[in-house]
């Protein structure tokens, strides 16, 4: 696979600081891949994205975009090819929703009609109303989640080849978050976009990512598919991550199919029963071994079923 973004032995520390924030980072993101970055607070996730966008320069090492050192690009060209949704969203306070989304039209001379059309398209993509009233609102008149979605729409406006997203769905409720996650995957598949997506949530990381970067204290602990992370954790940190904190009943995935129908058709493998208090890794293990329906119990009491299509399509409890 062609690599669109590549970190070669990248080290980074902030000016006037002793400690390295990123250590010997080696990493390749393929064209059309959805890569998630999972790490605790302060592990260097935002720094990683800023380096790609040349908002920070590596202390050591090289970063390549489409096979060429990013230093060989005109910095404006480079950034135009990347849609960056920063962690703070950063909508411009003096511009309304429409002006925020279409900020790039200040340099692409697009017709008014084209701009309007594109804004509407992006608003509906982001599950936002495309009424005039909404388009005229200013950032302070939006909820946190709406701001995040406008931020996403803004990053998509210029149709960038790669999206850098820093916890873009942090402020969303579960339902909207899942809708948007699904939309994002659709967009990614449909337009063959590459996405580098930062999140705090283990579950978001493995549901969305083709591959996951597990970052801890500025070091990549493992960069692998969700399956390999579960089955072959490379070190104690990764193992603990999957074993520990997320009991089964905290798992929320996309609800997709009508599992009962599948059972009646005799398609799925035998149902597996698990206790809700058991760690996520157990369920993931079953899934990876090809079990399609997982029934969750609390002691003797039946809680619900999860239907599994693949890791990206797991039915809700």
């Amino acid at each position: 696979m062609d690599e669109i973004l590549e970190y070669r032995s990248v080290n980074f520390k902030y000016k006037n600081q002793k400690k390295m924030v990123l250590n010997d980072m080696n990493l390749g993101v393929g064209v059309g891949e959805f890569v998630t970055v999972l790490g605790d607070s302060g592990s260097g996730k935002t720094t990683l994205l800023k380096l790609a966008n040349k908002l920070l320069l590596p202390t050591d090492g090289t970063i390549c975009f489409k096979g060429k050192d990013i230093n060989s690009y005109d910095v404006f060209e480079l950034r135009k090819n990347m849609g960056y949704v920063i962690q703070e969203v950063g909508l411009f306070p003096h511009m309304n929703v429409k002006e925020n989304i279409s900020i790039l039209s200040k340099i692409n001379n697009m017709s008014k009609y084209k701009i309007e059309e594109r804004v509407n398209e992006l608003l509906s993509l982001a599950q936002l109303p495309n009424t005039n009233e909404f388009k005229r609102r200013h950032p302070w008149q939006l909820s946190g989640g709406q701001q995040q979605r406008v931020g996403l729409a803004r990053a998509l406006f210029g149709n960038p080849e790669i999206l850098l997203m820093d916890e873009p769905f942090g402020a969303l409720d579960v339902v909207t978050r899942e809708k948007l996650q699904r939309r994002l995957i659709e967009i990614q598949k449909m337009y063959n976009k590459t996405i580098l997506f930062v999140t705090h949530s283990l579950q978001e990381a493995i549901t969305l990512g083709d591959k996951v970067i597990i970052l801890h204290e500025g070091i990549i602990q493992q960069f692998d598919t969700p399956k390999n992370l579960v089955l072959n954790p490379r070190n104690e940190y990764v193992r603990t991550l999957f074993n520990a904190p997320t009991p089964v009943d905290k798992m929320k995935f996309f609800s997709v199919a009508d599992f009962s129908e599948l059972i009646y058709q005799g398609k799925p493998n035998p149902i597996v029963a698990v206790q809700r208090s058991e760690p996520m890794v157990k369920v993931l293990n079953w899934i990876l071994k090809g079990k399609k329906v997982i029934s969750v119990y609390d002691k003797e009491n039946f809680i619900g079923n999860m239907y599994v299509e693949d890791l990206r399509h797991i039915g809700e409890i």
Partner: protein
Amino acid sequence: MINYLSNNYDKLLIALVEHFQLVGITLLISIPFSTGFSYLMITSKFINKIASSIMLFIYCIPSIALFTLLIPLLGLGKTNAIVGMTAYNQILLVRNIITAWSSIPVYIKTSAKSTGMPNLILFKHIYLPIMLPHLISGLRITTVSTTGIATIAALINAGGLGKILFEGVRTSHIPKIIIGITLSAGLAVLLNTIFSIFERKALYKATGGHTTKL
């Protein structure tokens, strides 16, 4: 006093216009200088320290002393006054421009840069509108201050309302003093009000209408 007013109507008007011109020209010259200085001072901490000290030092010289010091270089008259007042204004304007620049949150600057648009476009469409209320506020304070100092400039033959005021002082002509003071204070208040209106509008724009009222 009414008598004096009606007899010297044209003379007063000329003085007022002259005063206004003095203030206006000073501001027009002060703005590009302070913009340039601010740019250098934002880019370099070293320049910032040195320039702030010099500007503050100048600001602390009593105006009449500064004008007098400039006489050997520029002689008497308007040029001297304008140069002197421009020097005074620098600290006020520069302070406000730097405050305006730092009033833009870092993450807005990051988000602006990440769009990949050239700096000039970012400045025009993003930074400037957010900075504008602070800039106008600085301009307003500077205008009021200049209007006051410009009266003193009459002592070095720069004309303006100070001429009437000091004539009054010299000849103990109370109406002249009162009228001189009233007109220059009135001009300051008027200019202040006009700038305030623009400042409020700019603030409304900068915040997208989110103007917090206490």
